[in-house]
């Protein structure tokens, strides 16, 4: 079968019911990813990164639903599949790993049993063979002493080892897409480096396409071919990682890059913070959602919301850069 992209997310809108109204957690998000690619999604907490991932996986909380839009994977429309068909898809073709592996591992089953489970369910492998495969998968995921470790329970694993076990489980059926939602946020930096190294190796050796969700711009810089920047449920900028970092075309990306302290910065200059705070998702302002915090805002911004349009090498949702202005002095390289 031939298809234009491995995954195509087309204008999805995901709403969540909350006490005081509706959260438009994902509000018209579109992007594609191709085989072997690593795509980063960045944005602050609450910007809709996880809800975008869960919409693709159709694993939304009960209060949430996709009210509009379409997700296509290898030419099949995921948003139209029955729950059984979607479950098969999740077990074989698309895997997801989460920030806190403890919540997705079952505390009462041995690690080997859990890592081998997708193989038993979706590949009809018998128990013994599934455990043998689990040993091999754990070893590939960098867990030392795997034959002994398969017999242990999740609480006997450290945070980094649990995340490795989750990755091993996710990869058991050789999926073509891996969605990793903040896979290293709960881990120490030296363990983060180990896990990122593992994801890099898997991507290189098996060509697994990866969507990497993170709020860490450094992680994106080291891992991703392309990056999407989200703000208030929207994509505000999208482009090749080098381009976005060297010359951001959206004021939010621009401000974010300037506000973070860098390990390689030499002189001690005061940081340049972004004013204000992230928006209240239940009561979003009219117009561009970044207006209250934007140093470039013009009269039009508070009234009309810009579309996501091509600006030089990127896509940007901003009146000012679409009008030809460049966000000077923002480059990092």
């Amino acid at each position, binding site marked *: 079968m031939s298809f234009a992209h491995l995954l195509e997310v087309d204008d999805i809108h995901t709403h969540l019911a909350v006490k005081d109204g509706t959260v438009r957690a994902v509000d018209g998000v579109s992007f594609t990813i191709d085989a072997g690619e690593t795509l980063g999604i960045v944005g602050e907490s609450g910007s809709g990164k996880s809800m975008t991932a869960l919409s693709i996986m159709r694993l939304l909380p009960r209060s949430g639903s996709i009210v509009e839009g379409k997700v296509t994977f290898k030419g099949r429309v995921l948003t139209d599949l029955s729950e059984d068909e979607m479950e098969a898809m999740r077990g074989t073709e698309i895997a997801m790993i989460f920030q806190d592996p403890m919540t997705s591992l079952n505390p009462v089953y041995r690690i080997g049993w859990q890592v081998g489970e997708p193989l038993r369910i979706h590949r009809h492998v018998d128990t013994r063979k599934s455990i043998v495969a689990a040993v091999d998968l754990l070893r590939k995921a960098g867990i*030392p002493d795997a034959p002994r470790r398969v017999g242990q329970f999740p609480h006997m694993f450290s945070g980094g080892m649990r995340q490795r076990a989750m990755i091993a489980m996710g990869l058991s059926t050789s999926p073509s897409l891996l969605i990793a939602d903040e896979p290293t946020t709960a881990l120490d930096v030296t363990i983060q*480096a180990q896990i990122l190294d593992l994801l890099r190796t898997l991507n290189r050796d098996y060509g697994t396409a990866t969507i990497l969700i993170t709020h860490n711009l*450094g992680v994106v810089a080291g891992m991703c071919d392309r990056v999407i920047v989200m703000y208030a449920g929207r994509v505000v900028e999208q482009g090749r990682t080098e381009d976005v970092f060297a010359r951001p075309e959206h004021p939010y990306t621009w401000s974010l890059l300037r506000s973070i302290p860098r390990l390689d910065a030499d002189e001690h200059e005061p940081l340049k913070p972004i004013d204000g705070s992230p928006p209240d998702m239940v009561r979003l302002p009219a117009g561009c959602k970044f207006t209250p915090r934007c140093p470039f805002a013009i009269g039009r911004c508070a009234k009309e919301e810009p579309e996501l349009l091509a600006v030089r090498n990127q896509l940007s949702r901003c009146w000012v850069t679409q009008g030809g202005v460049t966000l000077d002095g923002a480059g990092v390289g």
Partner: protein
Amino acid sequence: MAEAPARPSAQAWTPAQPLVEVRGLRTWFPVRSGVINRVVGQVRAVDGVDLDIRQGETLGLVGESGCGKSTLGRSILRLVQPTAGEVRFKGRDILRIGSRSMRRMRREMSIIFQDPFASLDPRQTVADILGEALDIHRLARSTRARKERVSELLGLVGLSGDFAGRYPHEFSGGQRQRIGIARALAVDPSFIVCDEPISALDVSIQAQIINLLEQLQDKFHLTYLFIAHDLSVVKHISDRIAVMYVGKVVEVSPARDLYRQPKHPYTGSLLSAIPIPDPRLERRRERIILKGDVASPLNPPSGCRFRTRCFKAQPRCAETEPPLETVNLGDHKAACYYPLS
């Protein structure tokens, strides 16, 4: 060589000397088990730390989760009772002074916590939260003076005085951390332990809080012990940095030297693990990927505690613990037999 021995008497202290001198500090937590609650082991959270904190400086304290950073910070403030050692504040050993003197000392030291959500009582108004410290130390003579001070404190952290009557849940994370900072300032301290004050905040808010802490330091000549696991932030804010590994300080040096020339292999690997937000640079960088996990503080390895993960370890490292010694010119110390060049 350890740090110079602390002077014996309080009278001798002058601001040219370290504000805080930590000597041989141990804070162990007993692990109990069984019906009779027998002590079966000790978590050696802080296990023999020597450290000076100089007047007016920001000393960064970094290390992985569970290595003892918070316990060290709390031990220095005597919020947990250390098992052994000395903490001299302005020359006085605060682990051995009476409760009256300690109460007076408490006005000189404060703490800011990581989680602005958990560290503020949800049933108290902002005025109550800030007023509490004023009341304990009888720092406001009248209701009016108290109200004015609360208002002044809010102003210092960039919040409107109108917020005094509101409750913590009505504020964003960044605003709550500002309230936490205002509370720490209430007693007009000279020394503040900042225990991961920005880790729980959104990236776009972190810089606001860092700048605020720096402004307040200038204004009130504060001394900070700044605990964090994000080395980029620590590098930005600190004059000197101490690196901890499983209950021990393994390296301490001026911030700039530490980044240019880390001496302890653990510091080297920690630095190489920090992602830099620059794709061209980040993809070219050489990384030291450590094997394994942090050693357990319940049963640390013999000799050098880092040896189970160290890429430079030799047989000698398993035998005796390397002392924290001067490695470079003067102000740079590391505890390693085979320091990085």
